[in-house]
């Protein structure tokens, strides 16, 4: 019996480490199904463009997609709240837990299936590390330094950065470096040291700013055609769904290993200067969120979602923060003078 082949397209190029993350999911699914199911992982553009995977899954052009919700926030701004929303103090792990245990999944289903009437089922996985403020040609220390820059980001972060005086373009990862070369943008962020390195960020900018509130939590979105999924036998459905949870741990381990190694490479071998984003800019980001949140809350669904997130973070992060020892203290104890926060 030939295995059932699931056509899954990602929003990433072959060179991006995230393509490997998607294949990690495929490997798990294939092994768990005893080889009866196989995932054909296609890069962005193989069938449709990086930003078009939601339409494509809905229409059944592909059976599944590996992407992030912010890529379709043009269709409904609320999409961002499941990707990179306002930061109330929770990490990506906090927010992924909101999705599975705090009512996030139900709100997500309401948005995609009821409000937008889409034929998709979505799952989130892999709590990403906070995303760097990004890559700049010169140093940026103050909010004034940012004025008039054309900056690439996506989702609500785009609205946020516009409020901080930058002009924002949203592009898929594979188009960032060509856009820098063409002069379409002057600065950008994508996601993490490895992906950034993979598409050649270090060739077009030399100042890399870590730490930011613009996308402090995000997860991958695994999209399935609902018609396709519900036609499968229950065990296959379960493998596809729980495979997301399995890949989440595998991705986290790989990300810790590779992201940190690539950060070292950028610093030591590629001549990139690593900065911490200044307190002034971080403060301005929080103030910009303050302006943005009331605008978002004029929409009843977004209000409902944000209320749910706030309540979750208020309770959960209180526990997390109160409970957490000062890891920085311990690190400094054993590796003195390495990090200056």
């Amino acid at each position, binding site marked *: 019996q030939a295995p059932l082949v699931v056509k899954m397209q990602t929003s990433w190029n072959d060179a991006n480490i995230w393509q490997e993350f998607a294949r990690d999911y495929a490997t798990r699914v294939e092994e768990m199904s005893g080889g009866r199911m196989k995932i054909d992982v296609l890069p962005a553009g193989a*069938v*449709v*463009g990086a930003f078009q995977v939601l339409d494509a899954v809905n229409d059944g*052009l592909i059976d599944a997609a590996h992407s992030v919700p912010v890529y379709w926030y043009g269709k409904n701004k609320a999409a961002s709240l499941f990707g990179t929303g306002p930061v109330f103090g929770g990490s990506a792990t906090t927010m992924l837990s909101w999705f599975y245990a705090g009512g996030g999944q139900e709100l997500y289903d309401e948005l995609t299936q009821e409000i937008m009437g889409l034929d998709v089922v979505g799952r989130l996985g892999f709590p990403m590390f906070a995303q760097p403020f990004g890559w700049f040609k010169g140093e940026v220390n103050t909010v004034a330094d940012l004025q008039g820059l054309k900056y690439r980001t996506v989702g609500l972060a785009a609205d946020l950065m516009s409020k901080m005086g930058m002009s924002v373009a949203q592009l898929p990862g594979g188009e960032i470096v*060509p856009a820098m*070369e*063409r*002069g379409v943008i002057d600065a950008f962020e994508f996601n993490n040291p490895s992906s950034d390195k993979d598409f050649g960020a270090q060739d*077009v900018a030399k100042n890399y700013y870590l730490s930011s509130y613009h996308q402090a939590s995000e997860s991958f979105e695994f999209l399935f055609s609902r*018609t396709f999924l519900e036609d499968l036998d229950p065990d296959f459905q379960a493998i596809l769904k729980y495979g997301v949870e399995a890949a989440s741990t595998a991705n986290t381990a790989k990300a810790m290993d590779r992201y940190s190694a690539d950060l070292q490479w950028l610093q030591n071998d590629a001549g990139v200067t690593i900065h911490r984003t200044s307190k002034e800019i971080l403060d301005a980001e929080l103030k910009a969120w303050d302006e943005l949140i009331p605008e978002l809350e004029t929409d009843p669904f977004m209000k409902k979602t944000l209320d749910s997130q706030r309540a979750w973070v208020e309770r959960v992060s209180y526990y997390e923060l109160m409970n957490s020892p000062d890891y920085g203290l311990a690190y400094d104890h054993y590796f003195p003078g390495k990090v200056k926060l």
Partner: protein
Amino acid sequence: MTDPQVALMMLGLFIVFVFLGFPIAFTLMAMGIGFGYFAYFDSSRMWRAFDRLDETASTWDSWSTWIEGFLNNRIFDLFVNQTFTVMSNEVLTAVPLFLFMGYIVERSNIVDRLFTTLNIASKNLPGSMGVAALITCALFATATGIVGAVVTLMGLLALPAMLKARYEPSFAAGIICAGGTLGILIPPSIMLIVYAAATNVSIVRLYAAALLPGLTLVGLYLIYIVGRSILQPSSAPRPTKDEVPDMPMLKLLWLIVTSFVPLAFLIFAVLGSILFGLATPTEAASIGALGGILLAFLYRAMTWQRLRESVYLTIRTTAMVCWLFVGSYTFSAVFSYLGGEQVIGDFVAGLDLTPIQFLIIAQLIIFLLGWPLEWSEIIIIFVPIFLPLLDVFGIDPLFFGILVALNLQTSFLTPPMAMSAYYLKGIAPPELRLTQIFKGVMPFLLCVIISMVLMYAFPQIVFTLPDMFYGR
């Protein structure tokens, strides 16, 4: 039949169908949809509603539901999705603007002025008229991205002048045909934008990379023109005072200033701002278009009629190029969904070619394709098939693109589809025979081949400028 075999059949049939002479955009569209229908055929999904009808359904209901099932193939959605991808392609936005700029500049009498001036300025050189004609073509190539107008304008202007000066007719014709084709190689070339959009190579790098090869080719052409004029003076006699009048230095300077400087400024604004990363190609193209209108006004050549012509021609040429993309995006999505790229890649990898062998074969295929097909079809349809193979052989797609651009110069000059030659024949005096034109073109073809060999031997010619402007 396996899916990859079907993909190969799709490609083979397409090549056959091209020769039926139907508009290629729609042939591609049809092949994409037809084979896509097969690729996405899934009877349980398509006829799900039919299968779920209960027994009470009327005959009409069951028939109409069955037919709906027949049309419920996902290829149609893929086609629309790909169409929208072309519509929102940011690189291609520069196409209509550069076309518009070219059409405006064509109509601004600039060619006449340039040629007249250069003709006087160069009159003491051997083959002076040929040199003036070629340089006019090269300069004009930096203001337009297409071929055609330059050949005919120069054919009306420079050809009679050269014939009157008793130039060997085939020599004169060759100069104009070859010079008139430079516009698609020298930036802002529409062909390079299309190559960038078809291969995802950075357009600004391509522009930077094309500059020196373009100049090299112009240099080779000049060497040939001057060399032949020295060795065989009868083929390019010195013009008499009658044909090219003497002119006081000051007046000549003034002519140069008025004919050359505004155009040079425009070209510099456009290409300079792209190369120095000051503006995106689309932004630069808008400056070029607005600047072109201003220039035409200054030369008192701008009329309502000419503006309208430029506007209407822009939409027609843009539609011609971009509908090809609409067809080819669907075609190649289906081709790759069926695994066609993979199987071609495996086949070529299995041939055990060295990179140089591969490069020669690829360029030979493109050269041959250039006989029956135009550059737009070759770039949009066939280059993407070579693209994954470049990786296998470690060839930079940027380098390959420049070789293709040089190579396709020949597609305008070689029969049976030698458009440059036909344009010239169309406006030349009837005594000038097509065979004479082809004879005159041959040495220039040789120059193109020499320039390709030079690129291969000294890749720095291609890489120096893009590396200098954009690093790496």
